[in-house]
């Protein structure tokens, strides 16, 4: 398989999940589009090294993490895209639920936000999140638990409504 075909397959298999993750972090369809595009652009830049990585998707999420916390880079991404490419297809605005959730997510520390996005949007188990982040399982459980509690508080709900059994995952 050629390098290009390999990359294109990887893109096809993973880009949707990355878009979920980016959307979960930013709550903005346009930002999510930009971040996904930029992450894969960077992946293509260093594809030769990435092919040896155990988890290339995790590397992409790392790039999205950095870009999403980096307002300036996000602006740079959008500027670069606007200068070089036609505008992306229009995507509908976020729903009320999404707006409320993302607003609440933004009150959380980034580690909690990422853990919640991995768990709820990508169906990653506690053990998988621990592996990806290098944290202990206990720490990840703590992130998720505190994240849910803070989310519930921000949404005006009780923590009991905000669990799907993740604390029991391994």
């Amino acid at each position: 398989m050629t390098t290009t075909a390999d990359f294109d397959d990887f893109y096809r298999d993973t880009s949707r999940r990355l878009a979920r993750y980016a959307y979960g972090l930013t709550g903005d369809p346009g930002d999510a589009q930009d971040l996904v595009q930029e992450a894969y652009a960077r992946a293509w830049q260093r594809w030769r090294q990435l092919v040896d990585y155990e988890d290339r998707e995790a590397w992409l999420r790392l790039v999205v993490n950095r870009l999403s916390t980096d307002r300036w880079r996000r602006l740079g991404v959008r500027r670069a895209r606007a200068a070089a490419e036609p505008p992306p297809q229009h995507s509908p605005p976020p729903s009320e639920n999404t707006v409320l959730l993302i607003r609440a997510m933004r009150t959380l520390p980034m580690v909690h936000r990422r853990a919640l996005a991995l768990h709820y949007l990508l169906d990653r188990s506690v053990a998988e999140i621990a592996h990806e982040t290098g944290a202990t399982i206990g720490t990840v459980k703590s992130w998720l638990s505190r994240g849910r509690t803070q989310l519930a508080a921000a949404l005006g709900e009780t923590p009991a409504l905000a669990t799907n059994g993740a604390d029991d995952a391994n």
Partner: protein
Amino acid sequence: MPTDLDDIFASVAREADAIPLRTAAEARRRGRQRSRNGIVAAAAAVCVVAAGVGVLASPERWADQKTVAPTPSPTVTSTTVAAGPLPMVGKPIPYGRTVNETSPVIVKGRVYDAWKVGDKIAVVAADARTGEVVWRVEGFETSQDLGAFVSATDDAVLVSSGGGRTWVLDPADGSRRWDFTGSHLGEWVVHQRVLVQRNDQTGRVDAYELKTGQELWSIAPSADKVDQVLGMRVFGQEQLQDGYTDNRLVVVRRSGKVELRDIVSGDVQRTTTPVSPPQGAPPGSLIAYDGKLYDDGPGCCDVDPYRVVVTDLGTGASKKVFRGELGHSSGGMAVCDPGVCLLDREGETTRVLLIDAVRGSVLWSVPGPSTGSIAAYGLDILVGGEGGPAAMLDGNGREVFRTADGDLEWLDGGYAVVMPPLTGGEVSVVNAPYGAVSRLGTLPARTGPCVHTPDRLVCPTAKDVRIYQLKR
């Protein structure tokens, strides 16, 4: 709304799945293009920040007017009439093949450009005054997937494939001196004699003698990792010069501590912890200018509103001079010496602010463009562009010039050049104090951004790179 987080997240996931994504081919194309941008990023930063010098501040010019309403553009005065095509200097310098896009640079009277020839890179150096080719070399190993980019200082030419490897050449004849491999998201700071690079993975910093590649000093990885290294801009610095720092290097640690170091020896001259330290500050939110560090990043923990902190790295004095409102973000900052110019954004609404960096008060605030960036020359400001309208504001926030479809870039001495879209059009120069426009001539279609000095404009086409005369 649903009362269960599972339901809400499921709703978010469904919306995410409906976001239209670009294709893998577009990502690959962007990756190649991004490689080019990486090597010219330092030069671009020079344009924006060095533009903040040159006009002495005159506080009385703006201290008497706190806020001004936007005013219509003044009648544009044409001082010259375009006489046809922009005059070319020498002949076009051919690539010998069709090239999608290149990024030429102009340094110390030389034009440099690089492009791919199969799996190798070709580089040309030409005299910007005459257009005569000085040397042309070929043979830097790259691959089909990578690009070809060039940057330069007075004493070195840097050629990169965009894949991490960079070759340092002798500007006299293009011969190879040494090469190095950089980390993916790390950055460089280039000094006339020294190249400093940071490894973003480890935080390690290495300083090399630019001519020889000899290691001068380093900062080993530590628990308090180095998050950024920045060059220091000084008053009067040439705008398009890539060797863009004086002898001071600014090192920002993860803890927010800021070290001022001698870039040649690596010696720490002073360590300062600013008020509201730049913990994890994103690159671009910090500007080191004339001995001070300007920071418009988020305050803390990625949830606080942005703020502007000015720290004197010589004395350690540090002050938070502005605090953004919740839900607002900074769309860009420039040093409008002795103030700070800001693009304050809330959704699609943007305002341009001038902040008194001593008193910490907003001197004026006017509506601004929803796209583009900000660049200052003293108290004169260029805002917008990059697909949207661009405008020039004076020190009182009054609009003195506007263009609907071109980009505005500082030229020198309070003049800005108005560049047409890539499809071609007229090139003009605007005089900041009066808004007077000189039409210089027409430019044909080009494949990428042009670069300029006060009297030269260099633009790439698909077949060649061309040097034009900027005569006003």
